[in-house]
């Protein structure tokens, strides 16, 4: 397939060749092709792409008509092709490293001259992270000193939320209450891209949309602060906050119990005459402290003073205050983390972060709030100036299991109580959930009927089935991260999973045993014929083991438990060698139906008790599941990396190539209509082969398909399978008999083989029998371990690694090995590295 991209690249090369070696007025305006560059191009490119051969059906006369923008784009692409050794093709003569460099450098200089992004600029983008040579990074031969470019790093959505809380002076209890749903009048202007892998990079710049939202937010926040003061001064809430749906204001209910935080503002509102300069300064300083966490300098004070005086003259004291509050919130500093370094540069031109900057860098790496009191003190006392200082503080914070404790994702709290997913260091778990990307399961729409009525699509107020699965995947990750031993291997190979674990082990076990006692005692009684009498005879037993108050004598509500109901449940579970789930099927809001996605029997549902094998709930979790190994076999991950109605070997393979093998796969060329053809009699594997076996497709697909196809042992709901249903309208054997039921299709035998390559270890690379075989090999791979560390670097540093970060990565890798696979050791190593300490 002749893609436009390759066409343009060739076009660019040819253009340069044909006009070289003479001076050419080409794409870049007045660019001249130097003789030595032209010589390389002529020698290595002309054979296939000369005027006579016209590879890619290229005509030189049409190339000349390319607009400057298009030509620069060609040069950009060509620079990549040359630098990454994608051209010339592998079977052609190759230029030397020096020759490649020469050509790539020339492209770069032309691009730079025209203010066009060069490869160096692109290398900062997330999808270029793996372009830094892996072997070189970990070879130890790179001696350049690590640093992070001086930068503004846009705050994450979570940090933004905490900054708003800071301005409104909320305590931890109030913050916890507000985090899940946010505040009525504040829209988070920042969202992270939805993708597997690290999402929060330091590249984002605020745009017009952000600013508009910030304006609205700032007005609302200023209204709350002023409203709070007016209410304190005696005005009725209804008058101050007219919108009855939005009457929350800070310090409500704790006005007497907590220190009043807005004194300097209150002074201005109380006063009927123009405020003094000192009063205005005090108000400005208070808002700077609340919003920017620093005092205003002299210039800023004067500037804001001018603004306030002008506004006060026109609109009065309260308006003066309001506009100042808004203006500070509109400072770009409010939405950026500033990391520029301070003091004299060292011999390598690097400046160390100021102690204050360092305190924020550390705090935001491990949480979403600013530095705690100890960090602030360390910064103030100049004790954040060395690797030891950083290490001391990072270790201290990691050892603190209470300050950061909370849900991994507060958005799930409405559906799952927060204890369910609470962990001492949510940020560490957040890295792995982003790395694996399983939360994307929320974004893959599934047809309920294909799931046989089991899958609940995320909808209003619910994250549906993928929400439950994500929480269960979070729990697997959190448990391994908390244990902090052999973390990477465990994440990839554990066979222990959580399914429906909504009660702690001890409590759940006790409940099930109590229920069993009830069942054993009553099973031979006359409970079916005379339940009321049996209930009466065994009132004490029932009272003790079945939820008190739930045994209603008269009538029965939809969600109420009575003897017949619960004994029927026990009969189909205990009576068949299983155990019931700790939440009864008729309980209000019980939507735990997804056990079949783990290949477990259906949760018993009234009216359907005989539909499936006996359900056996495990009150003590995690527990071992067959046919599963680690997160890549978790239904959440498998759904996240699937299509709407089929698996997705390409996406699964790409993920492994990029995230575990530190490899790269180019984006789909823009002219490729990436569709897998339909065919009633062929499996997805066969249809995929039809679509991708052509040489020009296979060039990229060879890096994905063999990895992803091993996962064909799971379907797109994450169910282990031994045959593939050929879901085509022509293949329906039996229509569903129940509403939302699945049709039955013809099946085909399943091939689950694949091939692993790219570990750099000949004992691991090779054909694999299935995903489990592949996962075992991946878990043993040094490359995989280092690839995860590279991603951790990106997560905590907010950028791609540079070659000069080599020592940092090697140290983090060593820390992991020497600590027996502690992820915390990796974090300590990264956060006390020269990469984080220095700016240039």
């Amino acid at each position, binding site marked *: 397939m002749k893609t*436009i991209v390759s066409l343009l690249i060739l076009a660019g090369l040819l253009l340069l060749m044909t006009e070289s070696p003479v001076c050419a007025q080409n794409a870049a305006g007045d660019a001249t092709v130097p003789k030595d560059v032209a010589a390389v191009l002529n020698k290595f490119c002309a054979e296939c792409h000369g005027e006579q051969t016209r590879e890619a059906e290229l005509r030189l006369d049409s190339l000349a008509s390319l607009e400057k923008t298009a030509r620069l784009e060609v040069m950009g692409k060509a620079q990549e092709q040359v630098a990454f050794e994608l051209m010339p093709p592998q079977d052609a003569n190759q230029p030397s490293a020096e020759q490649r460099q020469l050509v790539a450098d020339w492209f770069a200089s032309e691009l730079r001259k025209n203010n066009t992004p060069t490869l160096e*600029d692109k290398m900062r983008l997330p999808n270029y992270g793996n372009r830094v040579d892996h072997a070189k990074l970990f070879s130890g031969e790179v001696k350049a000193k690590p640093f992070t470019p*001086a*930068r*503004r790093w*846009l705050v994450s959505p979570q940090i933004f939320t905490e900054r708003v809380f800071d301005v409104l002076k909320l305590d931890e209890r109030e913050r916890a209450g507000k985090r899940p749903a946010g505040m009525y009048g504040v*829209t*988070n202007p920042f*969202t992270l891209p939805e993708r597997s892998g690290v999402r929060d990079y330091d*590249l984002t*710049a*605020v*745009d*017009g*949309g*952000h*600013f*508009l*939202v910030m*304006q*609205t937010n700032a007005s609302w926040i200023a209204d709350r602060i002023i409203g709070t003061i007016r209410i304190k001064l005696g005005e009725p809430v209804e008058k101050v906050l*007219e*919108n*009855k*749906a*939005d009457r929350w204001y800070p310090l409500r209910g704790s006005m007497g119990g907590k220190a009043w935080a807005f004194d300097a503002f209150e002074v201005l509102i109380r006063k009927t005459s123009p405020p003094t300069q000192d009063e205005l300064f005090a108000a400005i300083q208070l808002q700077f402290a609340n919003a920017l966490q620093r005092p205003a300098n002299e210039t800023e004070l004067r*500037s804001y003073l001018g*603004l306030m005086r*002008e*506004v006060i003259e*026109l*609109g009065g004291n309260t*308006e003066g205050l309001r*506009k100042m509050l*808004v*203006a500070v919130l*509109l*400072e*770009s500093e409010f939405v*950026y983390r500033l990391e520029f370094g301070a003091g004299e540069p060292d011999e390598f031109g690097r400046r160390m972060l100021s102690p204050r900057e360092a305190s924020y860098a550390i705090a935001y790496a491990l949480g979403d709030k600013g530095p705690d009191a100890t960090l602030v003190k360390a910064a103030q006392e100049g004790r954040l100036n060395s690797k030891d200082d950083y290490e001391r503080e990072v270790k201290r914070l990691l050892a603190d299991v209470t300050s950061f404790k909370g849900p991994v994702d507060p*958005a799930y709290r409405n559906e799952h109580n927060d204890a369910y997913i609470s962990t001492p260091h949510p940020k560490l778990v957040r890295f792995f959930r982003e790395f694996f990307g399983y939360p994307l399961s929320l974004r893959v*729409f*599934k*047809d309920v*009927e*294909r799931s046989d009525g089991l899958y609940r*699509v*995320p*909808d*209003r*107020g619910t994250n549906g089935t993928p929400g439950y699965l994500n929480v269960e995947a979070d729990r697997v990750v959190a448990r391994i991260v908390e244990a902090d031993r052999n973390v990477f291997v465990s994440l990839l190979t554990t066979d222990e999973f959580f399914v429906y674990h909504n009660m702690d082990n001890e409590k759940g076990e006790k409940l099930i045993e109590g229920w069993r006692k009830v069942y054993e005692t009553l099973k031979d009684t006359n409970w079916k014929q005379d339940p009321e009498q049996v209930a009466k005879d065994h009132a004490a037993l029932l009272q003790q083991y079945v939820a008190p108050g739930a045994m209603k004598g008269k009538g029965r509500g939809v969600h109420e438990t009575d003897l017949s109901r619960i004994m029927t449940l026990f009969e189909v579970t205990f009576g068949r060698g299983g155990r019931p789930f700790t939440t009864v099927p008729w309980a209000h809001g019980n939507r735990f139906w997804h056990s079949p996605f783990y290949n477990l029997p259906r949760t018993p549902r009234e009216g359907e008790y005989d539909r499936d094998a006996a359900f056996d709930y495990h009150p003590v979790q995690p527990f071992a599941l067959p046919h599963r190994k680690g997160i890549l076999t978790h239904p959440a991950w498998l759904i996240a990396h699937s299509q*709407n*109605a089929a698996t997705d070997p390409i996406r699964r393979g790409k993920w492994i190539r990029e995230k575990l093998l530190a490899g790269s796969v180019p984006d789909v060329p*823009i*002219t490729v*209509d990436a569709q897998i053809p*339909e065919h009633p009699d062929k499996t997805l594997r066969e249809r995929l082969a039809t679509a991708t076996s052509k040489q020009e497709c296979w060039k990229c697909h060879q890096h994905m398909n063999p990895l992803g196809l091993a996962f064909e042992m799971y379907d797109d709901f994450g169910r282990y399978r031994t045959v593939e249903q050929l*879901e*085509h*309208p022509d293949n329906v054997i039996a229509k569903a008999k129940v509403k939302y039921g699945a049709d039955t299709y013809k099946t085909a035998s399943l091939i689950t083989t694949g091939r692993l390559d790219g570990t750099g270890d000949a004992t691991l690379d090779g054909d694999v029998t299935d995903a489990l075989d592949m996962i075992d090999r991946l878990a043993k791979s040094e490359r995989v371990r280092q690839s995860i560390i590279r991603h951790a670097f990106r997560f905590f540093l907010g950028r791609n690694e540079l070659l000069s970060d080599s020592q940092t990565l090697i140290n983090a890798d060593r820390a992991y090995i020497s600590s027996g696979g502690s992820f915390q050791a990796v974090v300590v190593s990264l956060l006390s590295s020269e990469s984080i300490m220095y700016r240039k």
Partner: protein
Amino acid sequence: MLTRRAFLHASAALSSGLLLAPWLQTALGAPTTGSAPRRFIFMHKGNGLFPQVMVPPSLNNDDKDKEQRKQAFSVDLKQHELPEWMSPVAEHKSQMTILQGLSGKMCTTGHHTWQSSLGVYKANEALTSIKWATVDFELARMFPSPLEHIELACFPNDGGNARGNINGIEKGFSARGPQQPNYAFGSPKVAMQELFKSVSSNQSDRIQYELERRVLEFTAGNQSGLAAQVSGGERTKVANYVESIDSIRARNKKLEEMGDVIRRNLPQLDAKYLADDLSTTNRQWGHTEILLATLISGMTNVVTFTVDELGTHYTGLKGIENERVNLHDVGHGKGFGSLNADEIRRTVRTQHMALINKIITRLKGVPEADGNMFDNTMLFYFPDNGETHHSTGVEWPFVVFSGRNAKLDIAGRYIRLPYYGEEGHQTLGNWYTTLLNAHGNPIEHYGELDVALEKMKRNQKGPIKQFV
């Protein structure tokens, strides 16, 4: 099929400012000869829109039979009577299209639907459910104007969007982009204050406007100074911020420059339309005046108007003026006052048609190029949730009014498209793709796909070819 490259090139051309001229012409009061801007009005209602009430009563037996069986057919409206409730727009019959047979199962359906009907995805109150800019914003960006887009809403009193302040500025039914809800003006009063403050004669509004201007100026000055101190990529981060502020200031400046035009077209609203406790129908009339003023003055080319929502408690309905009509109850068959549920539904729709008549008639009265403003306008009337109160999205009826220069060849027809699942069936996504393609955005397909149609192996991408 258009490639992404072609799309990018087309988008670049559209955003390059080449099309800025028309509004500027309007702003400067110059004769609007040559290419006039395209205008779009999206008016959506709650509680569903029954497909059966859309059908001309004068169909012959053969067509009636097709309609009954939901088979595709099309008739010329000139040869037919309109349903009674459409009588207020009878005069515009030749510019009208009754479009039946679209589906929207890829949207949130049922009671409340948020941005679904304009975005073609399953939106709900969680911002994360907003997947991309709604179609009205896509069009607004193709036909730039100082305010880009205006959204007016008769917010619900309970349930659904923007619970709470129906008189305020709240999250609306349109979206600017992924996870970015638009904000809508809930009352004519707040819309007047905010949209026309630059030309307000009210002293306090003038002061507020001046103070806001001052803050923007101050912030722009601060940040410009900051940008001057840094370079490279870091400069971009601050410079973008400065540009954002500057663009708002520039927009305000443009509006100030348009002061005469805006003043000439200022909504003439009696006190009753500016009251806080105005009736629903007065709110609608008031919003209609705002809508007309912003379009005619050139402040925007796209207005989205939530004419009601399921949670609206209607007041002022003809014949039951003193009743407070809960639309949700009407959806469940409850009558109010002397009217039963069907009669109330009819009264509500008739009221909507009266509003539309006012809009079209007024636009027809404003000269533009060699004709009038309506020549370059399309108005869409449709439900926010599909075919009924507890809808499933199997049908999504539309009434479309399009002026002389419309890009679609559909005017003056009753069109029933193939029913859901049948060969040739079309979805909301196809419909909006048609609109976007016809106006120069070559997107391959706008909106989510319908998984069930996918399962039936129906091709559901691309425009409705016979309309273009």
